[in-house]
């Protein structure tokens, strides 16, 4: 490892270039500027005089320079300002206007930090300004600013709780945000402001689950704990009905961890809600996080939500945390202590990890002891006791005493070893250390109480030791034992009393009290021998200095010595003093801790901390599951029924892109944060839907009736809403409400030539209502109902005609889609998208393949491969290794009769060929086959990739020849974007041909099928029945490829391909011609 300082140096080399990259402007970093910040603290105040000029200048570079200085200034001035604002409000107010101006800055970082400081100024008078700023920032196009606004929500809320309702509106809006940056912060705000508004989560539940892996670590913790609470209110219990946990089934589970998990759902009549499963599945990888808080929160999620037999997958990770810092150990051990009481089996295999080291801190030691005690059972008790023997000898006497108590607990819990433990404890009575002896006596007393019938010899033994024991508590315990079981030791007890009478005055109070007790009990059972002794002791007690003892003596005397006045009570003296007493329970201090959610502060301190949110019990009947459905899914089915795509959120995104590009803003990925995107897309879809289906005229009119009435309702609703807002915020929101309306109207006009005027009206009014940022959840569900009710009859109609549609429909049923897409690593895709953004404008999203042909090609025949046969296939997924590569799936089969070893990839040609090899397959048994993935950068050419497939003994030259269509990745874009892109790729870049279509290809649905089979392209939604558009990009260089198929009269069609890769274009054209003509 290199030293710190060199690292710093090299880091600094980069400073300048970096800013240039980000801001995209020429900057002149000078050494003097940043220092200006300190001018305030020194004399040269004038240095900043030019700041104002610079800020107001028109030159971008100057402004930026000034801003940097402001940012530099910020650091200390801001710290100062925020710290003292509350005390010097007037002064703080002077600064406000500066921040207000900075809130409009073109640089997102400056907007964000202005909001951050503004919201940190705790001066009530600026609440309205803050509110306004938060609202604006919540719809900012930069996710970073939106994140800051989520933070500001909490600050404002703590300053003025009256703003709650308005803030909830902002939270609701931000919850819909698709950016991972925002998710953690907004959930934090949700937890702080309105944790009871669980209804806000429904629609975002699946999204949050899917985003979780990519959220930063601190956000993950917050989201997971919120989702834990959510799940407990929405799903039914996955635990067995009887509620009693069967230890044996669990241990059996241990052996076959994986299999069971998979078989689980079928085995039981209980069916887990797919959303419940989604949460469990998506949190599992986070057990591998480096952040201990994340691991703990996943562990508690599993503990509270997972079926009993799946909880143990968290064990390993929790045990891993024990390697971390002492404080982490402390918290984790506490939680394990709570868990291990209920579920011994979970931690039993890791028992040795809880062995105590002499270097552990005291609180760690006692927690480990606690856990070891809980884990002890018949099978391992001997090991545990042996370990305890070592601990008893520890120099840390407090710990030794704790160990003795632990032994006592083991003895009561496990009846087989009670005697062994007792004997061991008796041996300890001769220990040199007093604390050990005393603790042993106390524990022995408790043990004897649980089974008083035997063991009179132990009592005798203790009586013998009595003279040597000096610890008061121990002496008192022995005296109590003597008295309680005096009938078993009739000879010894009076003798002990005799000794006590002698030393009574010098004993500790607690011993004196027990002596008086012993005397009384003996007097009742054996008054002949002890009458005089008792009276003597009672007399001593009468004049004791301690009033407790004097009281006790007086009480006892009245009770046992019969006289005239109190005859009534003394009759019962025997029953009062010698009543059988219940045995003390030896149990863990952690027994009831799990009433608090694990991992919480409340659990740690075992008291309800302020702000603790109870975890509710499972509902008996699950609430409506459909509340989590997101409307967007439904239209996907209808409106691009065939090959649109598998991702659920994509359609929303595309409309959102349109939204932004239209209003002339630079868009960010997933920047549209409002409900308007969902809402407007669905309305648009339903609108265009109604238009495109003129064939079913009766139906569509019915629909339009229905939906227009709907839209009336919702528009009136939303109008009042927007009215409200107009009064408060005057700017961009209002603009937005108008703009999309106009635009939608436009595009609808284009799209729907045959649309009736009524439906056009409907669609516009609809989109108007929806583009309002605050669509009520009510109207949302109405939309859904509407689309649903439409969906049903249509599918029925279609299913008769086109079987192929149903086949593909299987690709995208709502719940299954979810599961599938979540299998793909979101983080991976996120990374890939991040990298590819530089190549392609961000309106264009890589989507999943529309269709994956099953066809596989021979790579190596088994005859030539000496038993090794290999086939390859293009899965048409973005390559995981590198975005420019095409991923290739290779299945290797061993058809020989001996195992093949070390199958790997050897030399390749052309040598520059960039291949990501699969991992060496160490051994392939006969008849076995294995599927591996590799990535090949074909560099956008259909030239075959040649390489050697090697086994331990042989080398086989093989080659992979891609079809041109496999070199693409499908992308999704709007029709508008498609045209825009197409406009850029005319002339040289365009190739077209007219073909005669096969008759069966004339109906609209199957046309996308052959196209998708030939090439990995995405379908672009088209308003016209007779024009079909497809889009993709080349894998290696990311060049856009656009395909248009225009159906003409008399079964001819015009195929147009626009791409700058003209060679690929013509090859694709050839393939398409063939496919469409012949089919």
């Amino acid at each position, binding site marked *: *490892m*290199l030293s710190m300082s060199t690292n710093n*140096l090299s*880091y*600094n*080399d*980069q*400073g300048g270039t*970096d*800013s240039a*990259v980000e801001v995209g402007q020429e900057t002149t970093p000078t050494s003097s500027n940043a*220092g200006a910040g300190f001018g305030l603290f020194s004399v040269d105040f004038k240095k900043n005089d030019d700041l104002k000029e610079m800020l107001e200048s028109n030159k971008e570079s100057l402004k930026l320079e000034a801003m*940097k200085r402001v*940012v*530099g200034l910020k*650091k*200390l001035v801001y710290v100062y300002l925020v710290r003292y604002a509350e005390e010097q409000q007037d002064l703080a107010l002077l600064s406000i206007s500066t921040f207000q101006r900075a809130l409009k800055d073109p*640089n*997102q970082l400056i907007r964000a930090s202005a909001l*951050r400081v503004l919201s940190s100024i705790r001066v009530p008078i600026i609440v309205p300004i803050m509110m306004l700023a938060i609202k604006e920032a919540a719809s900012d196009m*930069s996710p970073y600013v939106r994140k800051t606004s989520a*933070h500001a929500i*909490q600050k404002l809320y703590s300053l003025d709780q009256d703003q709650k309702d308005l803030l909830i509106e902002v939270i609701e809006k931000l919850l819909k945000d698709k950016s991972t940056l925002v998710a953690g*912060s907004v959930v*934090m705000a949700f937890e702080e402001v309105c944790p009871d508004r669980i209804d806000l989560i429904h629609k975002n539940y699946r999204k949050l689950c899917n985003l979780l892996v990519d959220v*930063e670590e*601190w956000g993950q913790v917050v989201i997971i*704990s919120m989702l834990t609470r959510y799940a407990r209110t929405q799903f039914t219990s996955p635990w067995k009905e009887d509620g009693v946990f069967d230890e044996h089934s669990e241990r059996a589970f241990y052996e076959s961890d994986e299999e069971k998990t998979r078989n689980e759902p079928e085995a039981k009549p209980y069916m887990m809600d797919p959303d419940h499963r989604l949460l469990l599945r998506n949190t599992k990888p986070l057990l*591998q*996080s*480096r952040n201990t*808080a994340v691991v703990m929160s996943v562990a508690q999620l599993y503990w509270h939500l997972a079926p009993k037999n799946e909880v143990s997958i968290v064990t390993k990770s929790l045990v*891993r945390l024990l*390697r971390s810092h*002492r404080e982490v150990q*402390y*918290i*984790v051990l506490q939680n394990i202590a709570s868990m291990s009481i209920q579920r011994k089996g979970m931690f039993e295999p*890791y028992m*040795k*990890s809880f*062995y105590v080291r*002499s*270097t552990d801190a005291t609180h760690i030691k006692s927690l480990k002891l606690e856990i070891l005690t809980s884990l002890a059972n018949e099978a391992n008790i001997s090991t545990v006791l042996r370990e305890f023997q070592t601990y008893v000898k520890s*120099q840390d006497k407090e710990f030794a005493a704790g160990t003795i108590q632990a032994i006592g607990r083991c003895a009561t819990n496990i009846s087989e070893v009670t005697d062994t433990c007792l004997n061991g404890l008796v041996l300890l009575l001769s220990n040199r*250390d007093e604390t050990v002896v005393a603790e042993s006596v106390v524990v022995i007393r408790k043990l004897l109480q649980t089974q008083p019938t035997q063991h009179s010899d132990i009592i005798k033994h203790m009586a013998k030791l009595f003279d040597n024991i000096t610890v008061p508590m121990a002496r008192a315990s022995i005296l109590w034992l003597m008295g309680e079981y005096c009938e078993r030791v009739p000879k010894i007890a009076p003798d002990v009393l005799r000794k006590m009478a002698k030393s009574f005055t010098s004993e500790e109070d607690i011993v004196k009290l027990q002596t008086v007790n012993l005397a009384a009990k003996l007097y009742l059972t054996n008054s002949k021998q002890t009458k005089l002794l008792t009276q003597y002791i009672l007399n001593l007690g009468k004049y004791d200095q301690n009033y407790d003892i004097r009281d006790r003596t007086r009480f006892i005397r009245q009770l046992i010595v019969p006289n005239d006045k109190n005859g009534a009570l003394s009759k019962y003296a025997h029953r009062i003093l010698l009543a059988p007493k219940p045995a003390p329970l030896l149990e863990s201090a952690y027994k009831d801790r799990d009433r608090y959610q694990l991992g*919480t*502060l*409340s659990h740690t*301190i075992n008291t309800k*901390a*302020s702000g603790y*949110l109870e975890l509710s019990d499972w509902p008996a009947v699950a609430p409506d599951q459909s509340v989590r459905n997101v409307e967007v899914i439904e239209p996907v089915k209808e409106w691009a029924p065939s090959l649109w795509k598998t991702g659920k959120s994509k359609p929303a995104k595309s409309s959102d892109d349109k939204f932004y590009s239209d209003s002339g803003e630079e868009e960010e990925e997933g920047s549209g944060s409002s409900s308007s995107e969902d809402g407007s897309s669905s309305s648009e879809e339903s609108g265009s839907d109604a238009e495109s289906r003129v064939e079913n005229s009766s139906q569509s009119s019915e629909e339009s009736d229905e939906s227009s009435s709907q839209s009336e309702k919702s528009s009136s609703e939303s109008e009042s809403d927007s009215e409200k807002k107009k009064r408060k915020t005057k700017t961009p929101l209002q603009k937005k409400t108008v703009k999309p309306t106009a635009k939608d109207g436009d595009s609808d006009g284009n799209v729907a030539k045959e649309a009736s005027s009524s439906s056009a009206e409907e669609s516009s009014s609809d989109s108007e209502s929806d583009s309002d940022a605050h669509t009520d959840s009510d109207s949302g569900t109405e939309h859904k109902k509407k689309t649903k009710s439409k969906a049903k009859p249509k599918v029925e109609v279609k299913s008769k005609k086109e079987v192929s549609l149903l086949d593909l429909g299987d690709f995208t049923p709502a719940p299954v889609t979810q599961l599938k897409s979540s299998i793909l*690593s979101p*983080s991976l895709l996120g*990374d890939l998208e*991040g990298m590819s953004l530089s190549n392609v404008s961000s309106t264009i999203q890589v989507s999943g393949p529309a269709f994956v042909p099953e066809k596989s090609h021979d790579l190596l025949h088994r005859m030539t491969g000496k038993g090794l046969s290999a086939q390859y296939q293009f899965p048409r997924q973005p390559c995981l*290794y590198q975005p420019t590569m095409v991923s290739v799936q290779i299945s290797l089969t061993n058809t020989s009769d001996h195992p093949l070893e070390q199958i790997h990839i050897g030399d390749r040609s052309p040598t520059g060929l960039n291949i*990501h090899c699969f*991992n060496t397959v160490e051994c392939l048994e006969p008849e076995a086959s294995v599927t591996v993935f590799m990535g090949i950068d074909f560099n956008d050419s259909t030239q075959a990739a040649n390489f050697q497939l090697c086994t331990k003994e042989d080398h086989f030259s093989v080659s992979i020849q891609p079809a041109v269509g496999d070199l693409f990745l499908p992308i999704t874009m709007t029709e508008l974007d498609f045209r825009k892109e197409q406009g850029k790729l005319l002339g040289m870049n365009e190739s077209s041909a007219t073909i005669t279509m096969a008759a069966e290809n004339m109906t609209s649905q199957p046309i996308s099928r052959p196209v998708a089979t030939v090439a990995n392209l995405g379908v672009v939604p088209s308003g016209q029945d007779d024009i079909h558009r497809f889009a993709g990009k080349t894998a290696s260089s990311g060049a856009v490829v656009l395909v248009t198929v225009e159906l003409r009269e008399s079964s001819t069609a015009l195929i147009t391909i626009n791409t700058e890769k003209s060679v690929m274009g013509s090859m694709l054209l050839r393939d398409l011609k063939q496919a469409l003509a012949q089919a």
Partner: protein
Amino acid sequence: MIHSLFLINPSGDIFLEKHWKSVVSRSVCDYFLEAKEKALEPEDVPPVIHTPRHYLISIYRDKLFFLSVIQTEVPPLFVIEFLHRVAEMIQDYFGECSETVVKDNMVMVYELLEEMLDNGFPLATESNVLKEMIRPPTILRSVVNTLTGTSNIGDTLPTGQLSTIPWRRAGVKYTNNEAYFDVVEEIDAILDQSGTTVFAEIQGVVGACVKLSGMPDLTLSFMNPRLLDDVSFHPCVRYKRWESERVLSFIPPDGNFTLMTYHVNAQNLVAIPVYVKQSISFFESGSGGRLDVTVGPKQTMGKTVEGVMVTVHLPKTILSVNLTATQGSYTYDNGTKLLVWDIGKLNPQKLPNLRGSLSLQAGAPKPEENPSLNIDLKIQQLAISGLKVNRLDMFGEKYKPFKGVKYITKAGKFQVRT
């Protein structure tokens, strides 16, 4: 969430306070100081203290207490993890984490703390992001700063926070592109008197020092990934790749970082590289005792064991020791009763031995338990679990980096009971 932070030195002085929400009086620390007085060792102070109005969560690290004040429910690990990040950040910036360093760089520490939390919620905890905003000090720069009166505040805007990979800056450039990986394994073990292994396991860390230009995408694979029983990753590692193929695929942060930590299955037999023959006995009379310790190599896979050190916490009643070592030297601190025997390299031909007499305080009883021995050792070029890095591939960039892997085995919590 996190309300305030106090830094407290071992003698109980508060030398830094920082509030992220409203100001909390430092008198809140009295509860903590009280608990600290009660504890015998600073390590024994309970990490979570419940006071009437606040909750105090503290860590003890590098001889400093980091105490945070909490007002509402929050996962305690969340706070503890964050406090450790603060300590790491100070360490990272200034080379060490101590009272003097914090005091000398008070302004920067404040700036850092301001950026790390916003309203008590972590904002920028990635060292890479912070370093963009606030430059770490170097000797050269501090000289320049004194002369020109400038500061360490970066004149670039923090862009890392905006990216989907916040741990890496864009536009990194090196003339020498290099990626080095250290596989460090620690053996945790408890051996009993007879030398039998009571408990042993291996904990490993793959540290990395990656200085590569641009946006490299690295893939690190192991020869025998099956060995790894449990792993945890830096956020840059893609979980799914690991789950499906057992390779580490990641876009690395710039500079030093911990790529992964792992645990090698305890069920596998762990090779214990040394054996210890010891006898510590005290005379029944209670006047003194004898100590005789020999250390020898056991399963070392043919490598030399270096840096061997034996540490013993002698009982409190020991008055003095009189020992002779055949190799290395020993020190004994009568205040802490700590005996340290620094052996150095282990020579199989001539085993190092330490023997001599111990004398007890007059009248003190014979100690109940013999002290346990803590062993420290180091073996270069060996990962005791047998883990081997197979290969490192780089994608996304054209140049050829220098690559290197180093293996080290160390003793972790290696204890011999006597």
